[in-house]
């Protein structure tokens, strides 16, 4: 089950004025793991170049950040009005079942970009049941 319409999500991120400001000068590769599904997000100069939703064997090894959670955790995160502590990545890592990793300094610098990334994903989620 995919929670993301990849094409729509990439367009939405690149058309989002707030993400453009928050992600300025950002070059990074993010690996999202949603249950069994993996996505590689390639960001260059603050724009999302592409999202690979079917990385091959070992093609998901090289990344700067990972966000990992079971599918049911993502479903809760991506509700239009999520339950407490699913409202953003940081509380979901601190108090729920999300795992995050990468260079912490860069995470701080691009904190708002990460938050906006999740918000735009929430606005472009395919189908999410009641979490």
């Amino acid at each position: 089950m995919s929670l993301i319409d990849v094409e729509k999500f990439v367009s939405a991120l690149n058309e989002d004025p707030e993400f453009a400001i928050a992600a300025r000068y950002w070059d990074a590769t993010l690996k999202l793991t949603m249950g069994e599904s993996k996505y590689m997000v390639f960001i260059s100069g603050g724009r999302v170049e592409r999202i690979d939703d079917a990385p091959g064997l070992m093609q998901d090894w090289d990344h700067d950040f990972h966000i990992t959670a079971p599918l049911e955790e993502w479903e809760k995160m991506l509700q239009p009005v999520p339950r407490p502590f699913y409202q953003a990545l940081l509380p979901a890592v601190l108090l729920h079942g999300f795992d995050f990793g990468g260079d912490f300094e860069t995470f701080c610098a691009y904190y708002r970009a990460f938050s906006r990334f999740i918000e735009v994903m929430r606005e472009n989620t395919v189908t999410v049941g009641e979490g």
Partner: protein
Amino acid sequence: MARFENITGRYVYLDVDGGEYRVYFEENGSGIPLLLQHTAGSDGRLWRHLLADEEIARHFRMIAYDIPYHGKTLPRLDHEWWKEEYKLRRDFLTSFVVTLARELELERPVYMGCSIGGHLAADLAYYYPDEFRAVIGIESAHLTPGLDQRWLYHPRINSEFNANISLDMMGPASPEYSKRETWWCYSQGAPIAVLGALNYHCVEHNLLGLAQDIDTSKVAVYLLTGEYDFSCPPMLTQMLADDIKGSRFQVIEGMGHFPMSEDPARFREYILPVLDEIRHGVSP
């Protein structure tokens, strides 16, 4: 004709802990004094909506002040503060508020504060029970364990980081403009202010083993915490309320760490009944 708010601002000089501070405060209303304490790193503007509330102003003299290093209250002029790490101390903060109340000749004021101000509500009730008729703690707990806080004041991190975290500490359904205004106030804090104030919040404030000695027959204690506050989840405030016999605790549904500024209209619905109780002398 110009449209004015009734809020007025001025400065008062206070001697606290051997130093003189030029302290900024804004006020509105008359009646029972109501002191309003801001959060770490921000300033009294977080209270501006409540402060302008004319229904409350009919019965309460609301006073929103900036503590040193915050808002318009500068560090001391006679102390080389730039040569030391700023650390807000519990003794200083409690003395500061008590001194402000005494200098303004406030008679047993009500105190209300959020975040560090919420913790301070409980500390004032414990250390100065005879000074206040009631304390209202918003986002209060026995203590707040600190995470890795180096990043809150780090040469390689823009202090906008602190404001960005504050945005995620608010309720997802709180009005966007109000959340962004809260962010704005945070973004204007001195880079050292948040981390320095968290020395009180995460290190020196600790009422474990003490909170049960707070005497609510002397000072009424009201506690309110936002449902979405991940820095002080409601469960922590519930534990504090359980320890303070006679206190009253309410979860503010849908809101996070900054109820008074992230959704002023809905916060009003929660706080008016509390203020009415205090005004009519009903203990919680």
